[in-house]
């Protein structure tokens, strides 16, 4: 009998527990839903952090951003976020360290010369020059290349920008020290410093190309006086905002390059690429003869000076990097994103990378 009673008990208890189990299931479901929503929100950030701070270039395929660029649209924030999380679907570009910023960065005014030479670390600068309609927005970054990082040797690139009040123009320079000489980083630093010094004091009405000669002279004296073993390429530019856009003068010695981007198309302003695959280049202080060029660029253009570690991945007929940046540089990116873009990931480009980009508004 006792056994029967015992058997009957659970049936009654189970009947009484139905509302309790239902309530429990409901609570578990709500909890799971909350968890799922939280994980979903975190996944975007996690994925992008896992990819590191570089843009990855792969052969083939067109990224969502490129398609959007060709369609002349700017992605709303929600689509940009999707672009980040869709990286694993085989798009040529993976996400950056951070999603697109919800607010524009505060742009500090370029009040004095800025010289960037980060032999051991990555550096990024952002700001603006000029005022009102003649305002240009600047991004500059330098990244120590994989090759130097692997060898434990310093990066040898340098760049700088300054505003010439008399001429109402921005002066920019990028120098790339020759890897075959140990002190080339210092020489690149001196070359940019020389351009900034001479560019800042250049009087209105004088030819900007005249900056190169005294700057090269300073480099030569530095090398001779300190008996250093170093040499550098140099590309320099003056960007003078005008009512139609900007007047750009470019000069250079060696394989650092100048480009401008407009309407999704890249045009080279200065390059000395060789066709024989040799890593030989003209350089300071031995060769101080610049190849100068002047061009007018319309509003919406981006003028870029860069060392060959970055510019070598650009091409006028399209390249994976060029296509991506054409899509992403319709507006000045947040500074950290710009740094990540300069630090794009590609196994073939192991050299130091430096880029100064100027948006003509």
């Amino acid at each position, binding site marked *: 009998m006792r056994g029967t009673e015992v058997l009957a008990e659970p049936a009654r208890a189970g009947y009484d527990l139905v509302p309790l189990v239902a309530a429990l299931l409901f609570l578990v479901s709500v909890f799971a839903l909350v968890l799922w929503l939280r994980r979903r929100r975190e996944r975007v950030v996690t994925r992008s952090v896992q990819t590191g701070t570089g843009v990855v270039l792969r*052969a*083939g395929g067109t990224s969502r951003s490129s398609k959007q660029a060709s369609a002349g649209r700017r992605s709303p924030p929600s689509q940009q976020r999707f672009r980040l999380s869709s990286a694993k679907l085989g798009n040529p570009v993976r996400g950056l360290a951070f999603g697109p910023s919800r607010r524009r960065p505060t742009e500090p005014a370029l009040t004095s010369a800025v010289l960037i030479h980060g032999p051991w670390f990555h550096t990024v600068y952002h700001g603006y020059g000029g005022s009102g309609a003649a305002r240009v927005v600047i991004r500059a970054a330098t990244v120590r290349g*994989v*090759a130097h990082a*692997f060898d434990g040797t310093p990066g040898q690139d340098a760049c700088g920008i300054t505003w010439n009040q008399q001429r109402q123009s921005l002066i920019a320079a990028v120098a*790339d020290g*020759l*890897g*075959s*000489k140990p002190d080339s980083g210092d020489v690149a630093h001196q070359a940019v410093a020389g351009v900034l010094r001479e560019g800042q004091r250049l009087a209105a009405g004088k030819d900007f190309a005249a900056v190169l000669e005294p700057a090269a002279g300073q480099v030569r004296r530095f090398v001779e006086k300190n008996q250093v073993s170093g*040499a550098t*390429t140099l590309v320099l530019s003056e960007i003078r905002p005008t009512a139609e856009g900007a007047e750009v003068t470019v000069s250079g010695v060696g*394989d650092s*390059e100048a480009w401008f981007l407009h309407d999704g198309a890249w*045009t*080279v302003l200065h*390059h*000395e*690429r*060789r*066709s*024989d*695959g*040799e*890593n*030989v*280049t003209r*350089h300071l202080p*031995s060769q101080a003869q610049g190849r*100068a*060029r*002047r*061009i*007018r*660029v319309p509003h919406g253009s981006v003028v870029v000076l860069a060392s*060959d570690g970055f510019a*070598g*991945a*650009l*091409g*006028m*007929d*399209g*390249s*994976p*990097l*060029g*296509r991506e940046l054409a899509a992403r540089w319709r507006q000045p990116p947040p500074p950290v994103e710009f740094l990540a873009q300069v630090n794009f990931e590609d*196994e*073939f*480009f*192991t*050299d130091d990378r430096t880029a100064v980009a100027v948006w003509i508004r």
Partner: protein
Amino acid sequence: MTTQQPTAPFEGARSARIRTYLIYIVLDTSESMRTPARGAAPQDAPLQHFVNLIPRMLRDLADSPVINSIASVSVLAFNDRPEVLRPMTSLVQAVAIGKPRLGYGTDYASVLKFMVEQHPKDVRAVNLGRAREGLTVDVARPWVFFITDGRPYARSANQETAEWMVHRDRLVNLPIGARIAAIGLPGADRDTLWELATGDDNGSRNAFISDRRTTPRELSGSVVDAIQQSIGMSTSAGMLTIESPVGMRRIDRPRRARD
């Protein structure tokens, strides 16, 4: 848009360019390389050491991100005739390394001729292997690291310099433009090394002879260092000469010229 230059120098910038390097490691596998020094064990013969060390050299080279990504390496052996131990492939590709055939001679002419014929095929293969959408592949002039311990000898006789020099010249002149570093083990003929090697306009050549105390392992490490020196860096006038690898001395000039 206005420019100061009537014709914009656009052509070279039509596409992004990647630079790639071909490296030949050429190993003398003649009888003398298989003979250990007096009193040494048979496994201490230089050839056996190099055969064992080649995979290690390739691993050391692959450790460098620059060489790993932009260089392709081929290993050749020669005695009576040349043979490919490792075809020209990038270091990221795992490729079996063959065992050298037995032979007796040190036929410079045949191996140099073989390289002249092989180079265009290697360039094509590397171009195909590296081809990527939107990028142009530039293949730089090849570097040849020629490791030997003897003087040219073929068909039971010393090989006349003129017999192999004609192929050496075809290899080092354009369109191939190879740069040769001749690395002599103890006993190698200094004059031959000097004549084989290329160099700069100042008369300095990449002809080296190793110290007797240097072990094959140190020598192979030096070859790796020399290869790393030779590529990847922007230079002012082209990397025509490399620094003397550790454990080796540069041969200043041929003795015959001095006499």
